């Protein structure tokens, strides 16, 4: 191995420009780094090397010079490798099975939307903070998914039913477009489905539940622990889908739910000093995109309360 002075003329010149103490330190560094290569811990046995060379020759269709020498060895290991193969296959099946049962989870980040294309080419647009889960056999043995939050589904037609479950309800369709809102942790949580195209049925998760069938433009909800969905009624589809364009629209919604939606959509915190207003309902509809503060300001004005800005959010004052 070369000494530091030998590695290049330029290095020698640089060394000469240093004062003697520094020079000896550099020499020390050079000496000590001789054994500091972590790759030195990587070694290959003769067996590993032989396997690599065999691999290379196989890929190149070259005869192995050492083939005859290894022949006995090979037949000796074949029983062993068959057993290995069986073990490896069993492990692979176990791994595959557990893999298939781990659901795929997709979550739209706060302040953003996420569009997911499912294996059957159906698409799901997730509103901020919403979570969609489906298993890995989706599109093969079933088309089942779970939603917590709000999403717009465009389901590709297929003989296989497409089923979305929420905390309290399930929606069954064949090929349609619909909006599904179901925030399990919201105050007065409910599942509301709005159909824009095709046909679907909604039922509560309760096994004895009766299903209702919706036609385009209609809306129905399953409230809390109810076993029966509300009767389908006409809805303002534009308002229901306004979130996809980044607009805010709330029809007769509790203020607690509205604040939660604003928190997710704009990724802000809203602290409410008095809970008194949270159960009040409110209808607001914006035709343009606005920022969080404009919305908060309007809500406060309508409810006769004030707000102040805090770091990344707002406090609603009494």
């Amino acid at each position, binding site marked *: *191995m*070369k000494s530091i002075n030998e*590695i*290049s003329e*330029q*290095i020698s010149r*640089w060394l000469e420009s240093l004062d003697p103490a*520094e020079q000896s*330190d*550099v020499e*020390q*560094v*050079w000496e*000590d*780094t*001789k*054994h*500091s*290569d*972590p*790759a*030195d811990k*990587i*070694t*290959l046995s003769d067996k*590993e*090397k032989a396997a*690599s*060379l065999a*691999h*290379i020759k196989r*890929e*190149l269709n*070259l*005869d192995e*010079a050492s083939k005859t020498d290894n022949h006995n060895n090979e037949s000796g290991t074949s029983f062993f490798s068959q057993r290995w193969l069986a073990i490896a296959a069993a492990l692979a099946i176990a791994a595959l099975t557990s893999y298939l049962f781990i659901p795929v989870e997709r979550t739209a980040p706060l302040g953003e939307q996420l569009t997911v294309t499912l294996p059957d080419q159906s698409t799901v647009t997730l509103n901020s903070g919403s979570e969609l889960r489906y298993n890995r056999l989706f599109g093969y043995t079933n088309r089942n998914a779970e939603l917590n939050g709000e999403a717009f589904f465009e389901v590709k037609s297929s003989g296989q039913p497409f089923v979305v479950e929420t905390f309290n309800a399930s929606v069954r369709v064949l090929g349609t477009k619909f909006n599904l809102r179901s925030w399990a942790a919201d105050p007065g949580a409910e599942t509301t489905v709005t159909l824009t195209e095709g046909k679907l049925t909604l039922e509560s998760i309760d096994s004895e539940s009766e299903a209702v069938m919706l036609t385009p433009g209609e809306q129905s909800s399953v409230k809390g622990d109810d076993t029966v969905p509300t009767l389908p009624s006409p809805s303002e589809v534009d308002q229901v889908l306004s979130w996809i364009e980044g607009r805010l629209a709330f029809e007769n919604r509790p203020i607690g739910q509205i604040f939660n939606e604003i928190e997710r959509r704009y990724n802000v915190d809203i602290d409410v000093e008095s809970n008194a207003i949270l159960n009040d309902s409110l209808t607001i509809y914006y035709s343009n995109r606005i920022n969080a503060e404009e919305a908060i300001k309007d809500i406060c004005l309508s409810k006769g309360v004030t707000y102040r800005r805090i770091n990344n959010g707002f406090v609603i004052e009494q």
Partner: protein
Amino acid sequence: MDSASDQQFSQWAQRLQKSDEKALDELFEHTFENYVKFAWRYTKDKASAVDIVQEAFIKLWQIREDLDPNRSLKTYIYRMVRNKALNYLRDKPDYDVSVYDIQLADQGANDLLDNDDSSVLSDKFSEWIDTLPSQQQRAFELSRYDGLTHKEIAEVMDIAPRTVNNHIVSALNTLKQLYERYKADRSQVA
């Protein structure tokens, strides 16, 4: 680095060009492990390092007739391995942490505990080298561990020899400073 001389490399290149399989065997025997070590510095994973070097050897045989006898075979292989390793890193999912990384991390933790081990200083150097900017680190490693000349390093890394020199001087300067600070800290403790 293995004792294979430039002359040997140049002979192997000539024989490969004439499709001499024995030359491939000899080249493999003398250099394979060193190239695996080199690839490992990128991948930090033995299996993928082996795969990369195997691929490079396969490629080398496939293009044997086009080898330029006036260019160094040694640096040519280094360059293939480096490019394949960089592609591997580019395509590798981020979450794939190899068991070896974890072992190394554990080892690092242990080394901090037993200061009196004589290998500590060289371990310190490994750690410091790892914190150098990556181009400096690669140039330094090729110089120190693979024993390549600045000209060879320039060919492998596809940069000017002057730049190689600058990288190595900077690396040595940084290591020297770290070493001086380390010495000072130790004498304070003592």
